[in-house]
């Protein structure tokens, strides 16, 4: 069977302002910017041949500026090139970021699950930090619901 196999990377871009990492949401970055930054990184580090290996299957499926979470799809055969390019990324649109690949999987299903649980942990951390009482429902929880629906709506 000649099935086209993919790898789905769940990447968190940690904004790194003035050499200090933070949890803040990023402004003015969307998935197109991520894609072009990734393309530049692949061409700079792995050359034209590296880009050729990955180009047709490289897609940024999801990016949330609020949590800096993105889901990137690459073909399985050369996913290490794309993964390496993600690691070697240092800036997106001039702002410096620290890419952190949280999960790599072969189907979108587990990436979705991992993304949702990551979001839940982030929201829990934010809530613990601001010491909200347990039943108080704030905008953060609304955002969590909305992003969960968005993530689950992703299609192959």
């Amino acid at each position, binding site marked *: 069977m000649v099935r086209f196999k993919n790898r789905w990377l769940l990447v968190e871009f940690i904004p*790194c302002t003035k050499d200090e*990492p933070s949890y803040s949401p990023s402004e003015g970055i969307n998935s197109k910017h991520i894609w072009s930054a990734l393309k530049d990184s692949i061409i700079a580090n792995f050359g034209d041949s590296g880009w050729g290996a990955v180009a047709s299957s490289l897609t940024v499926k999801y990016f949330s500026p609020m949590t800096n979470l993105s889901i990137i799809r690459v073909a399985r055969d050369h996913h290490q090139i794309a*993964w*390496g390019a993600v690691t070697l990324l240092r800036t997106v649109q001039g702002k410096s970021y*620290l890419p*952190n*690949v949280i999960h790599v999987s072969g189907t979108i299903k587990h990436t979705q699950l991992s993304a949702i649980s990551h979001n839940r942990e982030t929201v829990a951390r934010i809530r613990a930090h601001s010491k909200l009482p347990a039943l108080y429902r704030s905008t953060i929880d609304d955002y969590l619901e909305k992003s969960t629906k968005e993530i689950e709506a992703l299609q192959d």
Partner: protein
Amino acid sequence: MYVDLNVTIPAPAIQPQKHGQSSKKSKGKQQQAESLAQPTATVAFNAAQLAKIESRIDLLVRLGYTVLALTQNAVSKVDTKTHTNTLDALLPNLRKREGVLFLKRLTIELDNESEKGFGLTQAATQLFSSYDIIALRPTTPSTLSLACLSHTTPSPLTAHIISIPLTSPQTLRLKHTLVRTAIKNGAVFEIDYSGALEDNDSERRNWWAGAREMTRVTKGKSLVLSSGTESCQLLRAPRDAGNLLTLAGLAQDQAHHAATSTPKSLILRAQTRKTYRAILSEPKLIMPETNFQSLIAKETQSEMSVAASSSQPPESPPPALPQVSENEDVNPHSTTVLPVPPPQSSSGAEKASSSTALNGGANGKKRSHDQLNLDELETPTSNPQNATSKNLHPPNGGGGEGSGSRKRKKKGKDKT
């Protein structure tokens, strides 16, 4: 459980100082601030430095590292009179983090001046015993051979990590014999992944060349992956850095070992600096059985269990003496008196086919150290073959222990 063995800590200002000579912070290499007058200078990290270190450690924990070795750098040589362990001053000031283990490491960078000697002498053992790991960073071929050959042998001063700078223009020629000797002695080679993220183009390119060379010469084993930088922007998650190494020629599982199991066994091995000749074992004395009767009885009982079928009543293995008469006639019916546990007798036939009692020991080689101890000690009569060889010759028990631990030591060092 990811281990980062090179979290460089810049040298703080050492007070009091005669002339305000503060420490310079360049990329990962520091000059030690020299305090001339007072040999026992107090080392204090100021609040800004502490905050930076804390945030870096926070980031590392967020990226997934649980074991961090804080590194103090020394250049050229360690001045035994003025050197102080800055990490000892730092550790109590760090916030308590659950689940994170901090270790102390000293990296000595060796250059041409260190060929004559750089302070790693017997006399200064006291100074180095406060560090958990000692690392050497040779920059010339002669210091490389010095580090690989003489400083990796087991002693209180062994340098367990050899970290070769990968971003320098002249990549050191790694001679295969040197590297092999160092690995056999238990040293480990370190790759700092921060070199791949540098701004300078030529440094990055040298890093790729150096990393590929390292993976080729070491064949992928005995490699340790670590950050080697003070800058937060150059830190990466362990699996990301491992993926960079797969692009430099490692296999995927080797890259994973470089971040987990190799540093773990290295840390354990580094603790042998406190032991004699790097032997890690807890020998337990096996008191020899002095009752000649019981020894003879066990011998005959083993013969009988080999010959007899497995129709023995279940009985527990005895520490007590069996009541057997002087005349040992090989009578199958009298075996009921002799407490032979039946599972052993059925397997006794099997074990009879295997020639030596060291079979148990050979199996023990695959078991962990503690299990080896327990199995040998608590069931001395379990294996009828063991009953003959081990109990009759109690020094064998001690020798078994020693050989067991030697096997363990060899196993750890060969990493097969």
